């Protein structure tokens, strides 16, 4: 089976298409096609079908989307159902629309980020680094964040192998080798799924206090964080963009987790349609998370100078704090929670500049 990708449609059109198609698949059609002939002057009460066979097979064919439940001596999930029309629709939708949309969305957003970096560059710290640092994230918060990161990246990669492996990787590696990757990915993905839910809950209980709406957040949003108007609007611990991202992670992450749990536990006898809907919800939710993560990873590493340090060491430069989170920085200064550059270096196990000088002088003697 060959996968010919036609000329790419604009991203937003694809997104709208996928959303509309998802709605179309999820909602059963309401029209009921009936072959009963319309009323005519000769037969004012209407003519009923005199061929019972056609009624029967119309029901079996299920063009109306309602599943006819027959009886079978073989007991199992939906063994009484003769035809499930949704199955083929779901399969074609997954192979055609979903794979293409996911591929183009990921590549597109990655491309946009490259473009943003080329045009805007790394946002430096106004006034340069001061050397003094202030405590931003506790050990537990960092552990929670990086646990979620590791689990999410593993799930994203294994999930993408399962979704896009056949068109992209199978031609490269051949069926036998790719089947190994796919089997490993499926087992890994299934096992790490609940870890994502647990990490999400850990994050929910540790980061929520920083992500409640504060006065001034709407103002930040209206100025788009400083893109509109002049200067950086006033910000607390997290700005509105970060808060948005946090709640998207939590809410869509929960949706993805729950749909994943439905998919991975067939022992509750759920029918194929529930599985198909869960699968689509899972993929669309995961796509949103992956796209957001790309942006998040960009901002946290090469997009903003001095940001990554906060999540790795737990401390950020005071000038960075003043520039990006001024209200919180002022609170920390008032409480005296800053460290000097030497103290910070000692904490990290590096020789502070002052000590290095002394050591050099001692050696010179």
């Amino acid at each position, binding site marked *: *089976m060959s996968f010919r990708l036609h000329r790419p449609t604009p991203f937003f059109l694809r997104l709208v298409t996928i959303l509309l198609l998802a709605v179309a698949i999820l909602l059963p059609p309401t029209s009921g096609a009936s072959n009963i002939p319309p009323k005519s002057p000769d037969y004012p009460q209407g003519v009923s079908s*005199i*061929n*019972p*066979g*056609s*009624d*029967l097979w119309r*029901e*079996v064919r299920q063009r109306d989307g309602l599943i*006819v439940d*027959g*009886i*079978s*001596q*073989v007991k*199992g999930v*939906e*063994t*009484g*159902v*003769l*035809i*499930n*029309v949704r*199955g*083929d629709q*779901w*399969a*074609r939708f*997954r*192979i055609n629309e979903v794979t293409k949309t996911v591929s183009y969305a990921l590549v597109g957003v990655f491309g946009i980020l490259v473009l943003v970096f080329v045009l805007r560059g790394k946002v430096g710290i106004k006034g340069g680094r001061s050397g003094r640092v202030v405590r931003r994230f506790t050990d537990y918060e960092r552990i929670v964040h990086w646990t979620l990161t590791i689990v999410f990246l593993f799930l994203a990669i294994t999930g993408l192998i*399962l*979704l896009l*492996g*056949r068109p992209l990787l*199978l031609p490269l590696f051949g*069926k*036998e080798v*790719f*089947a190994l990757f*796919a*089997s490993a990915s*499926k*087992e890994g993905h*299934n*096992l790490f799924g609940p870890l994502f839910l647990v990490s999400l809950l850990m994050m929910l209980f540790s980061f929520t206090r920083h992500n409640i709406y504060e006065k001034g957040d709407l103002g930040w949003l209206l100025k788009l964080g400083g893109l509109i108007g002049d200067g950086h609007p006033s910000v607390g611990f997290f700005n509105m963009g970060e808060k948005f991202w946090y709640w998207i992670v939590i809410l869509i992450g929960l949706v993805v987790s729950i749909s994943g749990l439905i998919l*991975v*536990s*067939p*022992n509750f006898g759920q029918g*194929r349609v529930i*599985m*198909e809907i869960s*699968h689509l919800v899972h993929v669309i939710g995961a796509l949103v998370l992956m796209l957001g993560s790309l942006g998040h990873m960009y901002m946290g590493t090469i997009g903003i100078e001095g940001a990554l340090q906060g999540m790795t060491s737990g401390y950020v430069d005071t000038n960075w704090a003043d520039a990006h989170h001024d209200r919180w920085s002022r609170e920390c200064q008032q409480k005296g929670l800053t460290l000097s550059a030497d103290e910070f270096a000692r904490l990290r196990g590096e020789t502070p500049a002052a000590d290095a000088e002394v050591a050099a002088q001692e050696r010179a003697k």
Partner: protein
Amino acid sequence: MARMKFYCDAERCIECNACVTACKNEHDIPWGVNRRRVVTIKDGEQGERSLSVACMHCSDAPCAAVCPVDIFYTTSDGIVLHDKDLCIGCGYCFYACPFGAPQFPEEAAFSSRGKMDKCTFCAGGPEDDNSSEEYKKYGRNRIAEGKLPLCAEMCSTHALLAGDADVLSDIYRKRVINRGASAFDWGVNFDKAKL
């Protein structure tokens, strides 16, 4: 080349389940896996019909299209077979198949579903014809012996037909004519039927 298909004549099927039993016995199919099943519609009402359903060996099979590992292949006879060695047990073919033909041996949560099993039209799998590995994994290979699937051979009323599509449609056409069926009555017309 032949294009192999199943056809179940709903007028003749008496729901005896001989096809189900024959298939299960011939291929040594484990507990819980059922390659073929008989479905009865309008049970107990007028117009009750039964149909024997297994893999329909579709020309454009949804299972083959959706499989993430591409384990399905169609033989030159139009029989859709699959390679159990490559199967990862994801279950997508079961979701996609309109007839629910793919079956899985395991059903626990978080577990792999095991290797997918389905009707092979008694044509085995990618292993060597009539070898013991082929029998262990896919069951008997009757097509390689020049025989037709056992379910159709065992059908007590010749409701289930299996073979080349042209031959099958010819047989069925003759039956329809003999029954005196018409566009207004697809069933047996006992006045006109030449039985």
